[in-house]
């Protein structure tokens, strides 16, 4: 089993709901806190999920893209083998990559090894923290079903995020990835990320160019 989150970039409006709901849940959750430096001065806090905004192309053909970026829970997670103490590990049963704070020495090598820049260092606690796929929600049997998914998936106002098992070919995430040409980021670095993104799917102009030209010629 490999749990994953799929983000449909055709639907992400960059509202940062997922970025905040992640922090909201996790700061007081089992792997918290998710601290903030200088919160009311020049702030520089920790976020396990950050939204990148990107402009592409040139005016007037400029595109705008938002990309939620959290732990990719890679199949070949580069952060795991580099860890000298085994604090950084990948769960065999569900593929979630986690950090055991008790054995973390805070060397930050895993942060350098991660191609995606999604691990964050807590200077006060001296440990590296990161997205846990809200494992404390997934495994908390006291929660109602709709809460037993990552907070970022639950909160997403455009339902751009889907959670599931990528190793199960019948799962919704597998089917989305297969049908919509889902892709992982920076494939050239060989981490084989489990988290995938679905590309933009622009709806084309609904009338024929010929008709426009004809009408233009005849009347305008």
């Amino acid at each position, binding site marked *: 089993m490999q749990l994953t989150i799929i983000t449909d970039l055709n639907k992400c409006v960059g509202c940062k709901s997922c970025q905040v709901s992640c922090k909201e849940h996790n700061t007081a959750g089992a792997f918290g806190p998710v601290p903030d*430096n200088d919160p009311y001065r020049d702030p*520089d*806090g*920790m*976020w396990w999920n*950050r939204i*990148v*905004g*990107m*402009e*592409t*192309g*040139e005016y007037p053909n400029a*595109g*705008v893209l938002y990309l939620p*970026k959290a732990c990719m829970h890679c199949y070949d997670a*580069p952060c*795991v*083998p*580099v*860890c*000298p*103490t*085994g*604090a950084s590990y990948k769960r065999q049963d569900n593929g979630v990559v986690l950090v055991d704070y*008790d*054995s*973390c*020495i*805070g*060397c*930050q*090598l895993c*942060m*350098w*090894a*991660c*191609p*995606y*820049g*999604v*691990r*964050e*260092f*807590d*200077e006060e606690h*001296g*440990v590296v923290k990161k997205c846990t796929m809200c494992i404390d929600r997934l495994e908390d049997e006291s929660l109602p079903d709709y809460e037993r998914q990552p907070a970022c998936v639950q909160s997403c106002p455009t339902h751009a995020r889907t959670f599931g098992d990528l190793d199960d070919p019948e799962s919704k995430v597998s089917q989305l990835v297969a049908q919509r040409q889902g*892709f992982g*980021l*920076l*494939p*050239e*670095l*060989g*981490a084989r990320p489990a988290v995938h*993104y679905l590309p933009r799917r622009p709806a*084309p*102009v609904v009338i024929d*160019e010929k008709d426009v030209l004809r009408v233009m010629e005849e009347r305008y």
Partner: protein
Amino acid sequence: MRPTTPLLLITVLQGLSGGITLAIAAFSFLLPPASDSILRNALLLSFAIAVIGGISSFFHMHRPQAGKYILRRLKTSWLSREALTTGIYAMILGVVALGPLVLPVNSWWYWVGGVLASIAALAAMFVTAMLYATIPAMRSWHSPLTVLSMMAVGLSSGGYAMLALLGESHLAAAVHRLAIFMLLATIVVAGVKLLQWKLFRDARRSLNAATGTGMPRAPYRIIDTGTTRPPYHTQTQVWPDLPVSLRGGLEAVVVLTMVLLPLGVIVATLDGTGAGLLTVLGAISFLFGTFVERWLFFGDATHSSKVWFVDQEKVGSRVATNRPSPALVHRFRNM
């Protein structure tokens, strides 16, 4: 990435100590014999440097209480291996350096220890360099050049230190031989560093948002980074792009202090006379250069996550045009 003092100290001092140890070994086995007392002092110096380096590594560990687990992942982690090899090196070196206080010098244990220390020094330097060279995400480091450069610089810094120690002692023959060796070593260092800087430059451009976001249409421009500036406190793998002038200036300093000045010293030393003060200056210059070189190694390193923090350098396409392909558009319309 953000350069930190402990990392600078560990890597530079480990190289220096290893270099000195190997230079001692060279004198003991290959080169014309030098004064035992000088070699013994050099060993002590090497050991002291290794200890300082080792201590500073504790400052890099933010939770030393978990340090007891550090050898758990020898199978996969170069850092685990580094802890082991550097630890073994320091132990052997300690025995060899401090042994003469209680044991007879020049007996078998001294020679065996020396050989082992040399091997351990090489191993430790290699493992440390591999730690950096085996991280694909650090685009600037992911290359054999990292190993070559770290070991060449480390050995050379030890060589220059040895030269300075010997230069004081007026052992002309040894100095001469070592100086010639250092001449070659310095040229190698210069060559490797130039190649490595080229690699650093290429690394800054080696990744772009096409694979980092799945958007094929360049150029890319960051709208915002999630926060209004990159999170340098919590994500130490990224660091602002060095200003071109700073990078160039520091590289010039490196060339000056690690290549030109030391070479001048060597040329002046080759006749083997009056080199005392000059060799000390040479060693200090090279060591200073090593710190600058190492600061650049960390501070100028490009991590793949930079794709999401910094605008991509605008490199115009030689073939792309703004016009849509009519044939392609036509095909989409008729789908």
